[in-house]
C-alpha cells in the first residue's frame, strides 16, 4: 500500500452512510424547490380538478345538460363517481409534473442531471430520490384537491362521500409512488422536444380512458360480438386502478375488488420503476 491510500482511499465514508446522506439531500432539495414554488404547485394542482368539477358538477347541472342523467339524484350519483376520479387524476398528474417534466428538461436541456449523478451514491438512488419526492407531491396533491372536489358543485348536486380511512392511507401513497414511477419512465424516455407527443399519445389517452368519469363496471355495455373490448383495453391503463381505488376509499360506489387493485398497482409500480431506472442508467452512463 502506498501512503495515499491510507490518506485518501480509506478516508472515504462507507458507501451506505454516504448514500443515505445523498438521498436525503436530493429529496430535501426537491422539497425546498416545492416550497419555493408552492403557489405554482397549488395552482397547477388545482386547475384541472377545478375545471373538471366546475364544468361537470356546476355548469352542466345548471344548464340542464348533465352527464349521467338529469335530476339531482342522477347528478349527485355522477358527482360521487367524479370526485374520487378527480383525486386519482391529480395523483397521476403529479407523476408527470413533478417527475417527468423536470427530468426530461434536466436530461435533455439543462444537463443538470450530469452533476446530480456525481453524488456519492449509486446512480439509481438519484432516480429513486426523484420518485420519492414526486410521490410526496402526489400525496400532497390528493390532500389539496379533495376539498375542491367536494365543495364545488351546483345546488342539489352533491357527491356522497364516505371515507374508508385504511384504504385511503394505504392507497394514496401506493398510487403516488406508482404514478411517480410512471413519471420516471416517461421523463427518461421523452426528449424535451417530444414532450408534446408524450401529452398527446400517453397522458391524454390515460386521462380519458382512466375511469375518471365512469366506473369501470359501467363500460360493460360497450361490446362487439360479446367481447367487452373497451373494458378489457382500459385494464392496461394504470390510472383505472387508481380511480377505482379512490372510489373504494372515498365512496360507497361500486368499484373493482380491492384484491385486484392493490396487486395490480404494485405490479405497475414495479414495471414502471424498473424500466424507469433502466432508462435512467442508460441515459446517464455511456
Amino acid at each position, binding site marked *: *500500500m*502506498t*501512503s*495515499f*491510500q491510507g490518506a*485518501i*482511499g480509506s478516508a*472515504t*465514508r462507507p*458507501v451506505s*452512510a*454516504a*448514500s443515505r*446522506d*445523498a438521498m*436525503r*439531500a*436530493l429529496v*430535501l*432539495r426537491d422539497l*425546498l*424547490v416545492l416550497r*419555493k414554488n408552492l403557489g405554482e404547485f397549488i395552482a397547477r394542482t388545482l386547475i384541472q380538478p377545478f375545471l373538471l368539477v366546475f364544468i361537470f358538477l356546476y355548469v352542466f347541472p345548471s344548464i340542464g345538460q348533465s352527464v349521467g342523467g338529469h335530476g339531482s339524484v342522477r347528478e349527485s350519483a355522477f358527482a360521487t363517481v367524479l370526485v374520487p376520479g378527480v383525486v386519482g387524476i391529480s395523483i397521476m398528474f403529479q407523476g408527470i409534473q413533478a417527475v417527468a417534466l423536470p427530468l426530461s428538461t434536466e436530461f435533455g436541456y*439543462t*444537463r*443538470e*442531471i*450530469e*452533476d446530480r*449523478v*456525481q*453524488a*456519492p*451514491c*449509486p*446512480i439509481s438512488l438519484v432516480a429513486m430520490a426523484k420518485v420519492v419526492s414526486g410521490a410526496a407531491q402526489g400525496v400532497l396533491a390528493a390532500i389539496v384537491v379533495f376539498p375542491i372536489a367536494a365543495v364545488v358543485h351546483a345546488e342539489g348536486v352533491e357527491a356522497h362521500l364516505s371515507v374508508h380511512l385504511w384504504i385511503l392511507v394505504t392507497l394514496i401513497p401506493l398510487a403516488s409512488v406508482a404514478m411517480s414511477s410512471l413519471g420516471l419512465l416517461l421523463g427518461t424516455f421523452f426528449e424535451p422536444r417530444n414532450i408534446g407527443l408524450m401529452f398527446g399519445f400517453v397522458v391524454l389517452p390515460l386521462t380519458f380512458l382512466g375511469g375518471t368519469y365512469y366506473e369501470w363496471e359501467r363500460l360493460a355495455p360497450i361490446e362487439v360480438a360479446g367481447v367487452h373490448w373497451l373494458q378489457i383495453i382500459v385494464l392496461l391503463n394504470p390510472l383505472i386502478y387508481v380511480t377505482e381505488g379512490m372510489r373504494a376509499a372515498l365512496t360507497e360506489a361500486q368499484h373493482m375488488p380491492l384484491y385486484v387493485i392493490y396487486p395490480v398497482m404494485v405490479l405497475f409500480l414495479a414495471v414502471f420503476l424498473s424500466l424507469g431506472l433502466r432508462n435512467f442508467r442508460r441515459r*446517464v*452512463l*455511456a
Partner: protein
Amino acid sequence: MSSVTAQSASPDALGGAAAMIQTSELTKFYPGAEVAAVDHLGLEVRAAEVFGLLGPNGAGKTTTAGMLGTRVVPSSGRAFVGGVDVVGEPARAKQLIGVVSQTNTLDRQLTVQENLYFHGRLFGFAAPESRRRADELLQRFQLSEWAGASVFALSGGMAQRLMVARAIFHRPAVLFLDEPTAGLDPQSRLALWDLVRELNGEGQTILLTTHYMEEADQLCNRVAIMDHGRILALDRPAELKRSLDAETVVVLRARGDGESLLARLRSAVPEIVRWRSEGDALELQVKGAERLVPRLVAAAEESGHEVLDISVAQPTLENVFISLTGRALRD
C-alpha cells in the same frame, strides 16, 4: 508512442511518488463505433500536480475524464482515483472526485448559495457546516453579492467559477476540469487560469482536458498529448517543446513556387529540421537562431521569391502536436 509505457494495474505497485490517478489498458469502445475512443491508455497522475490531456476534439480526452469520473463505463482496463477502483466501486470513488463539466450544470431552481449548500448536503456535510463552507466559498470566489440570486443571473465566467466552487466543496482528491475555458471570454479565461494555479498551489490535484495548447502550456505540470484515444507523448510542456529539437519556428510567406523556395531555403539554412506548408505560408522549425531572419530573407530574395511576410516564434505545444500527427490541433 514508445515514450509511454502502461502502468501496472495495481496501485500497490506504485513506488515513490503518490499517484492520485492510475489507469492501465483503459479502453472504451462506444456502441457501434469501430475504433476505440480510448485505446489501452496507461496514465499516472501524481498528487498535487496539474495534469493536462491535450488533443483535438474526438481525441478521447473527455471519454478518459468520463471514465475516471464514473460516467463512462470502460470496455476494458482498469482505473483508480485516490486508490479506489472507479469501475468496481463508483459510488465510493465519487466521494473523491469533483467535476466541472463543459456545460453549465448548475441547478436552475436554486440560488447561487443554495447550489453550494445542497452540494455540501449531498456529500454528507451537516446543515450548519454546509452553510458555513458555502459562504466561505462564495466569499473566496467573489460570488457573495450574488448569493441569493438565481443562477440565471450569472455571466458565463461567474457560472464557471460557481461550478468550480461546487466541485471543490467536498475537498475532492482530484478535480476534473473538462475544457474549462471553452466558450469563456478572454478575461474570464485568465481569471480561471489564476484560480487553477491558486488551487493547485494549495495542493489540489487537477486533471484538465483542453484543446487549447496555450492553456495546457500555461497551467499543466505535465501534459499528455492525445490523438485517436492514445497518448502520443507525455512530459512537462517545456520538455515536449524541447523534444522538437528546434528553438525557433518561422512562418514565411513569399511569392512564387513554394517547392523551389523550400529547396533553396533548406540549402541556405541547414539548421531547418522540420517544415510544412500551410496555404501560401511555409512553416519552418529551425535549430539555432543565429541571424536567422536575414539569412532566410536573403536566400528567398536571391532565388527570386519576394518575401511578403515573416514571423519568428518559439515552438508551442501545437508544433509538437503537428510534428506528432501531421495535423493541426483544430483540424
